[in-house]
């Protein structure tokens, strides 16, 4: 700034070399893994844990009946984790989802069991109550400006109490058979089969085909935009690997009781929310709010609106989880859903969500939830008692978040 003329930088990063770097980066699997260590670390951990427990249980973990069990047992936690990870990305949390699960299940039970309404009335009512509760939380957080931690802590007490009042402090059961089918029903026998369910295999085949078509179309679009894509053999390998896993999973299910209805619900939700968070304006705004609230506001994001709707969404998903849980437990209890919030939060964090917000994925949260599910299930199979299970789960959560913080520090993003 004094009288000496500053040297104007002449060095230019060549566009070609940068594009080349991009290309190399995405086609080399090792670089790909290293770049996304935060995410891929979770997948690797998942594979290791599955392998470990498969070994420790002499393969029982991966037996057809047990895989079905894992899906049924943890489906409602996974549904909750979808909504939870979205809240966590935006920098919030919801401590009340266990209570919402209980309340929505109770409302449904009162209508269906006490008043003899058809099963779908119970489902609609439960989801409506969930949405209303979510709107209540969203109002206080988004429009009054209270911290979500406090609002939902209050909600946890409030809706637990309402559950008890709705149920008059007694358990209601059993549900009629068609309501029970939601969580414990299977789609099978539709097409027959010799000792296995052909329909399940067909659906799995459709899923694989759908996946292959969609990734291929993505690849074509990227090529059209002259963006680097992975080499064709690598692409084929990836598709085949996914196909193998899905078909194996379908094969195992087909040899058990067929395709669980819950799995269909879960798959639809995961795909819909996975795409929503990644590919929509709304999803991006959620990440923007969590990443830097002020910058999001000054970029024209309607922060209050987004915050409100993600709480409504959490209520909606908690309503669905309430239906699944009440259906699976074949009744409604005043203490239902206790501590579910903690499992859902743990799933999100193990799945790579950042405590400070702005980071996380729906798929990651699902893997995080499955890690916990496989660990619980594996330890149950091994006859490990509840107390040890709790200790192990606690340590896994701790290590997962420690890993996240370590990763961030390495990336130099902490300040």
């Amino acid at each position, binding site marked *: 700034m004094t009288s000496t003329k*500053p040297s*104007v930088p002449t060095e230019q990063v060549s566009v070609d070399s940068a594009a080349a770097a991009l290309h190399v980066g995405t086609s080399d699997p090792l670089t790909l893994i290293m770049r996304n260590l935060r995410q891929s670390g979770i997948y690797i951990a998942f594979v290791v844990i599955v392998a470990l427990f498969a070994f420790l249980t002499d393969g029982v973990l991966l037996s057809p009946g047990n895989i079905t069990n894992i899906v049924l047992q943890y489906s409602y936690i996974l549904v909750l984790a979808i909504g939870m990870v979205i809240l966590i990305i935006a920098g919030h949390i919801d401590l009340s989802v266990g209570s919402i699960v209980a309340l929505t299940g109770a409302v449904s039970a009162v209508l269906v069991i006490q008043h003899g309404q058809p099963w779908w009335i119970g489902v609609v009512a439960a989801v409506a109550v969930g949405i209303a509760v979510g709107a209540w939380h969203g109002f206080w957080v988004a429009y009054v400006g209270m911290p979500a931690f406090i609002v939902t802590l209050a909600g946890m007490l409030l809706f637990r109490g309402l559950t008890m009042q709705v149920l008059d402090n007694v358990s209601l059961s059993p549900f009629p058979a068609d309501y029970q089918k939601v969580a414990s029903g299977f789609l099978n026998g539709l097409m027959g089969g010799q000792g296995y369910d052909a329909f399940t295999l067909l659906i799995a085949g459709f899923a694989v085909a759908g996946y292959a078509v969609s990734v291929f179309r993505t690849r074509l679009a990227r090529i059209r935009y002259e963006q680097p894509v992975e080499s064709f053999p690598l692409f084929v390998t990836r598709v085949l690997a996914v196909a193998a896993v899905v078909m194996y999973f379908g094969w195992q299910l087909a040899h058990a009781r067929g395709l669980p209805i819950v799995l269909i619900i879960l798959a639809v939700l995961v795909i819909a929310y996975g795409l929503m968070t990644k590919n929509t*304006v709304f999803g*991006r705004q959620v*990440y923007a709010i969590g990443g830097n609230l002020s*910058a999001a506001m000054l970029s024209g994001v309607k922060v209050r609106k987004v915050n409100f709707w993600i709480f409504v969404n959490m209520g909606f998903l908690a309503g669905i989880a309430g239906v699944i849980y009440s259906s699976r437990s074949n009744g409604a209890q005043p203490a239902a859903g206790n501590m579910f919030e903690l499992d859902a939060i743990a799933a999100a964090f193990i799945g790579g969500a950042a405590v400070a917000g702005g980071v996380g994925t729906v798929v990651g949260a699902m893997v995080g939830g499955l890690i916990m599910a496989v660990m619980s299930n594996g330890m149950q199979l091994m006859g490990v008692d509840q107390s040890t299970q709790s200790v192990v789960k606690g340590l896994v959560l701790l290590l997962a978040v420690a890993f996240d913080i370590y990763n961030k520090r390495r990336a130099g*993003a902490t300040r």
Partner: protein
Amino acid sequence: MNDVLLEMRGITKRFPGVTALEDVSLEVRRGEIHAICGENGAGKSTLMKVLSGVYPTGSYEGEIRFDGSPVHFGGIRDSESVGIVIIHQELALVPYLSIAENIFLGNERRGRGGLIDWNRANADARDLLASVGLNENPVSPVIQLGVGKQQLVEIAKALSKEVRLLILDEPTAALNDVDSAHLLDLLRRLRDRGITCIMISHKLSEITAIADSTTVIRDGQKVETLDMSSGDVTQQRIIRGMVGRDIDSFYPDRVSEPGPEVLRIEDWTVWHPVQPRLVVDGASLNVRAGEVVGIAGLMGAGRTELAMSVFGRSYGRNISGRLYLHGKQVRARTVAEAISNGIAYATEDRKRYGLNLIADVRANVSAAALGKLARAGWINGNEEIKVAEQGRREMNIKTRTVLDTVGTLSGGNQQKVVLSKWLFTDPDVLILDEPTRGIDVGAKFEIYTIINRLVAQGKAVIVISSELPELLGMCDRIYTLSAGRITGELPVGEATQEDLMALMTKEKELAG
């Protein structure tokens, strides 16, 4: 009077990539009020942080002698132990603690068994308050006091530490005229009691009224020390010292061909979001297509507040005034409305308000205009990368790919990401708040070049800057802002730094 209390010799302080202070020497005589002047970023605060031990011995070069003997401070406690107390511009009181608790914070009046002797603390506090002319109950919480009285509590706190050298950083910046006058009176009384005082101030009238000597700092170097006792040092004389430097070929050439008016505000008035005071007071200005208009003002003049209140009312309350775009009055009540009306605002603090540092370049570039990339709410991810790549090429953002995290980029490259983001909203008016703050000389030149390119495309640009040479080098016209009021409008050909500084420090005529 020639008895020297403090002597700083050859102080050089370097930060990575920047030399904040270079061979600065300062002598303060016992019992004087010594003013330090300089533009924003000249190095005044850095010098005071060196003196008070915020930057410990060893992190700078040079020597400090206090009361005749060399001193080495490892932290602020060390400097306080010899009687050097600094009062920062941002007051450091705990709002919900009482006056007495604040005065003795970290220096508690202990009684038996290590417990705090509240009777003694409150009694001592009352005496200290009396000595600064404040008649308040020491047990009332600080938050109940106005800013002026809080300033006095800070001074009482300094007195409780047996202060010998009191450093005040912009003590009157947030005060009204009455409180300012009161404070200056108090400083005179303290001087009479033998307390030496260093005062950093932008208000030249106060300096000429109260200081015994004035040291002027510019670009990290000491320019001169003026003896004020003779009384013939004028404000103009000080200004010459503060700005005396040349503009050279640092700024890329530009042919100025202003077109029709794009944005005009009239009688724009903004209140502080919580305090009952005006931040922008009846400001009117306009900017035309293909024109760069500068806003010059000292810290606290209301520059950022003016810009943000225009940008979708993102600052302040009770905003009144008229906003015209292309001659038509518009209401931009939210940021989204401002953006859709073609206004863009690049904030002065890009890390806190401008960027999502944990997200990648692509997501930051698209953040303010995602709608343009989406159909029915679904984003075309490939188009988004294309847009980000385009920004990267045009702005010469040095990053491996657009999927790199913004937090890992240098300041200059982050600023280019901010500019790419706002250009993608396709604005008619760009308000750039301190566009070159904290970035190196080379990147500054690039930013200037980008601005010139935008103007050549017919955009209207408003530049807010603390660096007068930058404004004189870049702008067609410059408005000066002082205490929320537009105090002048100068075509750049007629403006000098001295003129601007005089207008920027022009105070509201006292209405009795």
